[in-house]
C-alpha cells in the first residue's frame, strides 16, 4: 500500500450492504451485523430435500414456534466466527495453563482415592453427555432458520465437543495407566443404574424433531440443572475429600456455562416475547423436559443438588418471561 492518497476526496457511495442498511440504517455496520443478518437464502429454493420432502431446504417450520422475523434474536456476545475463535482461543490458553500447572506440580498424585472415585463416578461419564450435546447443537444449527440462531448453536456445539475433550484429558491426567479410568467411567455410563436416567434422557433427545424443543431440553433445562451442581456442589464435595485441586481443571466449565447461558437466555427471552402462543409452547416443553431431567439427574447430583439448581433455573425463567410453576413444584 504505497500509494499516497488525499483521502478526503475519495468518498464512499454507501456505508454498508443493502440488507444490513435496511435493518440497521445507513451507517457503518459492525462486523457481527454484516456477517450474521439476512445472509441466508430465503426464497426460490429449487428442490425439496430428498430426506425431508415436507420442508424447503431452509424452512422456518422446523419448529412449532413462530416468529415474524427470525433475526429478532441477536447474540449478546456478538459472536461471528472470528470473534468466537478469538474468544475461545483466550479461554483455551487459560485452560492450557491450568492443565500444565496441574501436570507440572503432579497434583494428580496428591488426589485422595475417594476424590478420584468421585471424579470417575460423577464427572467423567459426562464426556458422553457432552458428545450428545455436541450432536444436538450441531443438529439445531442445521435446522434452525436464520444465521444468528444457527451460528450460535453451531459454536455452542463445538464448545461442547471441546468440553468432552477437556473432560477426557482430566481422565487421562488422573490415571496411572491412561485410558483405564475413562473406560471405567464409560462402563458406568453404559450400565450403572444411577447413570441410565441421564443416558436415556440424552438418547431420547436425539430423536426430538423440533429444534427449539431440543434446545429447551438440552441447553435450557438439562444444562440448567446440571451445571450449577458441577460448578458449586461438586467442587465443594471434592474439596472435602481432598480433591480440591481438580477445581483447577474444571474451572473452565463454569466460565463456559456462564458464557453459553448469555446466548441461551437471550434466545428464549426473544422467542417467548414474540407471542403468547410461543410462550405457552415453551412452557409446555419446559415442564415436560424438566420433569424428565430431574428424574434423570437426581441419582447423580442428589436431592439437595437438584433443589438448588431448580431455584436458579426458576430465577432465570422468571427473567425470560417464562413460567416457574413447572420447576418450582419439586422443591
Amino acid at each position: 500500500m504505497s500509494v499516497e492518497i488525499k483521502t478526503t476526496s475519495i468518498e464512499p457511495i454507501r456505508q454498508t450492504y443493502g440488507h444490513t442498511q435496511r435493518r440497521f440504517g445507513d451507517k457503518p455496520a459492525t462486523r457481527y451485523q454484516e456477517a450474521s443478518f439476512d445472509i441466508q437464502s430465503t426464497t426460490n429454493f429449487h428442490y425439496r430435500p430428498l430426506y425431508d420432502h415436507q420442508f424447503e431446504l431452509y424452512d422456518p417450520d422446523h419448529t412449532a414456534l413462530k416468529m415474524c422475523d427470525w433475526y429478532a434474536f441477536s447474540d449478546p456476545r456478538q459472536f461471528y466466527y472470528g470473534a468466537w475463535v478469538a474468544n475461545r482461543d483466550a479461554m483455551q490458553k487459560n485452560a492450557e495453563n491450568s492443565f500444565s500447572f496441574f501436570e507440572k506440580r503432579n497434583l494428580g498424585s496428591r488426589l485422595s482415592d475417594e476424590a478420584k472415585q468421585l471424579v470417575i463416578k460423577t464427572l467423567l461419564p459426562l464426556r458422553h453427555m457432552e458428545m450428545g450435546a455436541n450432536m444436538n447443537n450441531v443438529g439445531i444449527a442445521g435446522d434452525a432458520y436464520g444465521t444468528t440462531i444457527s451460528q450460535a448453536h453451531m459454536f455452542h456445539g463445538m464448545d461442547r465437543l471441546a468440553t468432552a475433550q477437556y473432560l477426557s484429558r482430566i481422565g487421562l491426567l488422573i490415571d496411572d495407566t491412561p485410558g483405564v479410568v475413562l473406560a471405567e467411567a464409560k462402563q458406568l455410563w453404559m450400565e450403572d443404574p444411577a447413570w441410565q436416567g441421564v443416558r436415556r434422557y440424552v438418547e431420547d433427545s436425539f430423536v426430538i424433531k423440533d429444534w427449539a424443543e431440543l434446545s429447551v431440553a438440552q441447553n435450557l433445562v438439562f444444562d440448567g440443572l446440571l451445571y450449577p451442581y458441577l460448578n458449586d456442589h461438586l467442587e465443594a464435595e471434592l474439596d472435602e475429600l481432598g480433591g480440591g485441586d481438580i477445581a483447577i481443571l474444571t474451572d473452565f466449565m463454569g466460565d463456559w456455562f456462564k458464557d453459553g447461558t448469555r446466548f441461551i437466555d437471550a434466545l428464549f427471552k426473544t422467542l417467548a416475547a414474540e407471542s403468547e402462543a410461543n410462550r405457552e409452547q415453551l412452557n409446555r416443553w419446559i415442564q415436560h423436559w424438566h420433569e424428565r431431567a430431574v428424574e434423570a439427574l437426581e441419582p447423580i447430583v442428589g436431592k439437595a443438588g437438584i433443589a438448588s439448581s431448580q431455584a436458579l433455573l426458576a430465577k432465570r425463567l422468571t427473567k425470560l418471561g417464562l413460567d416457574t410453576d413447572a420447576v418450582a413444584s419439586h422443591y
Partner: protein
Amino acid sequence: MNAKTSKRLNMKDRYRIMTRDLAWEPSYQRHEDIFPQEDFEGIKIVDWSQWEDPFRLTMDNYWKFQAEKERKLYAIFDAVSQNNGQMNVSDPRYLNAVKLFITAVTPLEYNAYKGYARVGRQFGGVGARIACQMQSIDELRHTQTQIHAMSHYNKYFGGMHDFPHMFDRVWYLSVPKSFFEDASTAGPFEFLTAISFSFEYVLTNLLFLPFMSGAAYNGDMNTVTFGFSAQSDEARHMTLGLEIIKFILEQHEDNVPIVQKWLDKWLWRGYRLLSIVGMMMDYMLPNKVMSWAEAWEMYYEEAGGALFKELERYGIRPPKFAEQTVIGKNHVSHQTWFVFYQYGHATAFNTWIPTAKEMDWLSEKYPDTFDRLYRPRFELLAEKAAKGERFYNNTLPQLCQICQIPLAITEPDDDTMISHRDTVHEGERYHFCSDGCRDIFHNEPEKYVQAWLPVHQILQGNCGGADMEKVIGDYYRIEMGEDNLEFEGSPEQRRWKQWKQAV
C-alpha cells in the same frame, strides 16, 4: 508418574480418546431413528470404525490455529480500509470479478456451512461427524471473511450491495444456487461425494486459484489474503473428500455403481458451473493469470486423470462425458462472455468488449477457436458500440433444465451449432444444453422438474411482472445504470478517474 504416562499415549490413541471413544452404542433409541438419513441412498456402511480420520485436530488446537489466522487476516482488512486499498487494483474493470465472487460464490460457502452441519449431525460414525463439523465452521468462516473482505469494496463499487437477495433471484445466479441446492437436498453420502470429493477435491483448484491469483495479479489485497488464509482449511477439506470416497467404496461393492453415477453427475455439473469462472479468467481479469483452457488442462486433465487412475482399482471409471469437457475448454469462456455481454443490462456488473491487446492474448491462447469464431463476433460488436449502438439482447433465452445456463453452448462435434437436447416427461417437454445435463435429468426426473428456472418464472409473472426494467430494478435490486450495462462510460469508470486524480 501420572503425567508421564499420559504423555506416552501416541497421537492416534489420544485422538481416539478425544473423539471416537466419546460415542457409544445407544440402547434406548434405535440407531436408525437417531440417524434417519443414513440408509435411504442405498449406501451400505458395514463398519464405521474403519473410517480413517482425515486430520486429527482437537478443538483446543483448532482454536489456536484458526485464531492466529484470523488475527493476521483482519489486520490486513483493517489496513486496506484505512489506506484506501481499493485504489491499488490494476484497473476498475477488475472489481467486476469481485462482484461476481460475492454474489455467486460467497452464498455457496454459506450453503456449505449448513450442509456440513446437517451431515455433521447425521452420520452414524463419530469420526466422520466431527470431520464434517469442523468443515462446517470453516465454511462459515469463509462466508464471513469474504463478507468482511468485500465490505470495504462494497462502499466504493456497485453490484455487491445485495448479494444474498440477488443470489436468490437473479437469472445467472440460479446456476450456482441450483448447483449447491442440488447437493444440499441430496442424502448425506451424495452431499459429500458432490461437495467434498467432486468439488473440493477434484475441482477446487479451478475455482480458488483463478480468483486468488487473479486478485494477486490485479492488486486486490483483501481477496488474496482471505484466499491464502482459507487454503489450509481447504487442505483439510480435500483430505476429507478423498477419505469419504475411499471409505464408501471400501465398505461395500454395491456402493460402487451408486458412487459412479454421482461422480458422473457432479463432474458435469461442476464443469458447467465453472464456465462462469472460465469467463472471469479470460475476459474479466485485466491482468491475466492463465487461460481457462490451460487451467482445465493442468487441474482437471492432468491432476484429475491421475486421480481417476487411482480409483480404478475400486472399479471406478473416469466420469462420463469427461471427453466433452476437453473439447469445450476452447469454447466455453468465449460463449459465456458473449451471453453476459448481450444480457449486460441484467447483470450486477459491467460488461465490455475486450481491448485489442486482450484479443491478441485470446488469439494466442486459443489458436484453434478464437480468431475463427469469436474475434469476428467481438469486432462486429465493437464496431456497433462505436456507432452508439451497443448491443443488448431483449429476448429471453431458453435455459437448461439442469445447469440453468442459457442454451448458447455449441455441439461437441460441431462448433457452429448450438447444442440443444430435450425430453418429454409426464407430458411436459424439458430442454437441456447437453447430453450430460439430459442424463442427469433422466436419473432423477422428480427432482429436476422442480427447478426454479428464472426465465420461466419471469414469463409466469413471478418476478414482479412482464416489464424487464422492473424485474431487473425492483425484483433483482440491480440498480439501473449504476450496477449494470457497458463499462465504457459507466459511473464506475467515471468515479474511478476522479478518484485517481485525487491520488
